């Protein structure tokens, strides 16, 4: 155990980086981008070092730092991670450099009649967001968690609102208000916890470890649970709290979409595991059937809606909602396998969907359109792009050999003994996932070139394409596997550039690596998951879920 405050550094480094980037003089603006990359890589390094310093068999919370912050409220600036939080920090560490790379040529929305706006703010907000995301997972004080949880909204709000698509204002405000409402409801519960701790311990506290010891009256527990649950269900998002995500995910710039779906939404499922289950075990058990219904409805409903989407980013957003249903199923089944699967799913979904968003962003950058019906026949012209797109899609539908398969499988086998009906229904979601992924891949990458892509090469760069798309090729789907030879005069579509290869390769490598060798990740999260599940089951008289020995468990 070293004394280096890794977590504090991981919060401070990007925050300072954000301040430096924001303060760059206009003449040195070109430095913002490389600086952002350097800072994000440094955070990745710190995350790896923190993982090395973390002892899998050690205490539940490690790398702890605690400083009294607001003594009047009993608030400490307390940081610490368990395996679950650490895996999320690693995910952040990996995704942010990828996002920086993927946004390298991001340009702000055009302003009629004026020069281009500075991108400095984009990089500064991105780094600030990274700092706050680390904070939200590393906080072990509920108040501090809440502060990060709410503060995180501000950079994302500006990323969407300043740099997003045509409907960005609406999406940004909707995102902010939904999350804020959830956050405020949670605040009521946070204060409620404090009041309970004040009456039971004689001194109000927000420290997670102390709050976990409380014996809360079941009625009160239910109310407090609901406060946290609503906030996390909006964040995750579970159906029916999900309507902000398709808008935000679609309108956000690609980099922000990746972080939004890859990391920010994980705060919701992370919150279920860290706060809802251990703090309110009775309420969690009582209300689990309802949550599971929401989860399964989410899996099926979001998958069905995804199939009907024509907008690629919207489609990916809906697939995420379906995946969050799986994660919630895994968490609220209360078995170690299922919960381990859910945690793995959180990491894997971040990687797989992150890659899918990045690749979709690359396709959009080439065509200038988010509509599936504006594309076609890309595979023949950009085979590498098509290959990565396919891999991301397959990872997203949990094909064996990809990382998501491991997690989805664990969730399903773990949930089945406890909740067979829910599990069977959720399994149907896999079939639907195959539909939405493969249909999108087929329409975008194969078949005849359509829309802007079918225009003669002489056309200048993308932009507005008023030309109506060709009628959708009805019925001919089966034959589209063979790419129609592109007519000689259609536009050239460049394949992946070296930068783009560099951006996607870490995620591709992780998808394959975690697909065949997930053991290190499983070892990292299992102790924390077991502790969480035993928190739920530990209450006497409760319906103790079976904590079976799992085939994946290893003692060291």
């Amino acid at each position, binding site marked *: 155990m070293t004394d280096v405050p890794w977590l504090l550094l991981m919060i401070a480094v990007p925050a300072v980086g954000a301040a430096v980037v924001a303060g760059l003089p206009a003449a040195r603006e070109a430095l913002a981008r490389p600086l952002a990359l350097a800072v994000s890589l440094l955070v990745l390094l710190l995350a790896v070092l923190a993982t090395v310093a973390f002892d899998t068999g050690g205490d539940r919370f490690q790398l702890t730092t605690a400083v*009294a*912050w*607001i*003594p*009047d*409220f009993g608030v400490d600036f307390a940081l610490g991670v368990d395996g679950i939080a650490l895996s999320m920090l690693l995910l952040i560490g990996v995704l942010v450099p990828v996002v920086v790379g993927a946004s390298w040529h991001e340009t702000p929305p055009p*302003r*009629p009649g*004026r020069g281009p*706006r500075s991108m400095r703010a984009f990089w500064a907000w991105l780094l600030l967001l990274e700092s706050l995301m680390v904070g939200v997972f590393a906080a072990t004080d509920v108040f501090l968690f*809440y*502060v*990060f949880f*709410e*503060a995180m*909204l*501000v950079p994302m709000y*500006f990323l969407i*609102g*300043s740099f997003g698509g045509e409907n*960005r*204002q609406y999406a*940004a*405000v909707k995102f*902010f*208000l939904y999350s*804020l*409402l959830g956050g*405020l*409801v949670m*605040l*009521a519960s946070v*204060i*409620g916890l*404090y*009041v309970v701790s*004040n009456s039971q311990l004689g001194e109000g506290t927000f420290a997670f470890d102390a709050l976990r010891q409380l014996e809360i009256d079941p009625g009160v527990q239910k109310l407090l649970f609901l406060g946290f649950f609503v906030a996390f269900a909006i964040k995750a998002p579970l159906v029916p709290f999900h309507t902000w995500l398709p808008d935000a995910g679609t309108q956000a710039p690609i980099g922000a979409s990746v972080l939004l779906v890859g990391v920010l939404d994980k705060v919701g499922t992370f919150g279920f595991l860290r706060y809802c289950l251990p703090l309110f075990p009775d309420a969690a058990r009582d209300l689990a059937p309802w949550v599971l219904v929401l989860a399964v409805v989410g899996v099926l409903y979001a998958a069905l809606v995804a199939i009907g989407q024509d907008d690629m980013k919207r489609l990916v957003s809906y697939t995420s909602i379906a995946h969050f249903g799986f994660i919630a199923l895994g968490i609220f089944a209360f078995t170690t396998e299922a919960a381990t699967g859910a945690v793995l799913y959180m990491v894997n979904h971040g990687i797989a969907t992150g890659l899918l968003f990045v690749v979709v962003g690359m396709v959009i950058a080439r065509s200038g359109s988010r509509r599936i019906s504006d594309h076609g026949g890309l595979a023949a012209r950009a085979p590498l792009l098509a290959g990565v797109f396919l891999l991301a899609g397959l990872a997203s539908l949990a094909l064996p050999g990809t990382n998501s398969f491991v997690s989805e499988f664990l969730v399903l086998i773990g949930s089945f003994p406890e909740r067979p009906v829910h599990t069977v229904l959720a399994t149907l979601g896999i079939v639907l996932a195959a539909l939405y992924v493969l249909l999108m891949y087929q329409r975008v990458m194969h078949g005849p070139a359509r829309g802007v892509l079918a225009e003669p090469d002489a056309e200048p760069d993308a932009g507005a394409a008023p030309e109506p798309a060709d009628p959708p090729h009805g019925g001919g789907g089966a034959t589209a596997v063979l790419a129609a030879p592109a007519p000689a005069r259609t536009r050239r579509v460049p394949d992946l550039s070296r930068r783009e290869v560099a951006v996607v390769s870490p995620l591709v490598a992780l998808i394959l690596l975690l697909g065949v060798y997930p053991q290190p990740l499983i070892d990292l999260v299992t102790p924390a998951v077991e502790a969480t599940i035993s928190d739920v089951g530990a209450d006497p008289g409760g319906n103790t879920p079976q904590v079976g020995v799992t085939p994946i468990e290893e003692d060291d």
Partner: protein
Amino acid sequence: MDGVAAPDLSFAALAPLLFVFGAAAVGVLVEAFAPRAVRHPVQVAIALTGAVGAFVATLLLAGTREVTAGGALAVDGVALFLQGTIAVLGALSVLLFSERALDPARSAFVAVASVPAGSVRDRELSTDERVQTEVYPLASFALGGMMLFTAANDLLVMFVALEVLSLPLYLMSGLARRRRLLSQEAAVKYFLLGAFASAFFLYGLALVYGATGSVRLSAIRDAAVVEGGDTLLVLGLGLLVVGLMFKASVAPFHTWTPDVYQGAPTAVTAFMAAATKVAAFGAVLRLLYVAFGTAEWTWRPLVYALAITSMVVGAVLGLTQTDVKRMLAYSSIAHAGFLLTGVIGLGADGSGPGLAATMFYLLAYGLTTLGAFGLVTLVRSGEGEATHLSQWAGLAQRSPVVAALMGLFLLALAGIPLTSGFTGKFAVFRAAIETGAWPLAVVALVTSAIAAFFYLRVIVLMYFSEPAPEGPTVGVPGLPTTIVVAVTAAATLVLGVLPGSVLDLADSAAVLVG
């Protein structure tokens, strides 16, 4: 007759009041005798000396707990903390008044208030650099009244303080140089409704006197214990509360607020929004906890209902506003409701965290709202300040600093963590939940979310919209406004990130004597 015995006065404990009233009196003399050319700087210096001196005096007096002036004034932690707050807000407001760089005619105040608006003479004067410097002694008097208000231990003194603080404000509301009719209308409206409120207060005073035989708060307290459910007493209390809630712009006694906030010169609006609210809540706290602290059941349901009404009215009506000043007025109404949440959280007999929470909230809100109004003075078009929301579109591109600071103040008003607004809200909500008023806290949280929408809308306009081709310009502020904005912005951040020491101070000052 033996003649009236002079009451025992502790001059040291009254130092803050003496400073401010002294400055006001000297200001009047300067107005009468000093030549016009030097009046402005001299008046500003005197008013600032008064306010800053009062602030220093409150710091030196910290820890004092005494009742003086024959029992009419209570100098205790609450009084000193709030007097200090009012003095700081007052000093900053005086700086806003003294701004000379923004208006082409060098002042936001009218040259000669008595000239009818729209007359030939008025048009001549509208570009004259002359300025009505009476505003400084008026402000000092108002400041003195406010500080007296928070220390009044006697309903009669409270009434006198109410009038001393109100009358100058009525006048100051009518002194705008631009859009004078709107300003004068605001002044008349404020005066008429304010007079009604004073009458309510006075009637309540009379009833309470009738019920208890005393106007001294401590005597009322003793009587309330004995007589409890006396109808006269309860009725009197209700009327007193109406009078005070009017000043604090709590719905449903808020109808004057948007009109007056919009019509008054913005610097005066800032002063009213920040300092008057502190003073009014100071009096509310003292009345409810010193005089009626043992008869909580009489006012608790009333305050509960007022808090909910005010939060809902402020948040919902704020949504429909298209003028920045009116929007901030509704925000002020909503915040009055949040403050009442803290008042509810005081618990039986002044114990519990509600008192300190309310005091902290007052300080945080006062500074934030002062800063926000200060920024409103900077955004100008041809005919004065550009307060219509549509004129703020794309402000971030014209002036990133102003937009960023306004964004900060708005986020603080919305209660986003790491700003003072969040710390304050957290403190009052905690206090309310701790005393079992969690339904009230839930309403407060929901209305916070509703209110966030209209704060966000301004941020959206400033950052995500394209500026109108003939949009307003952002004036380059002189030193005074720069100081105000810098101080309030720094305070908004510090009270959000490291509020510990100020919370401690509020906690240790949360003592009422009487």
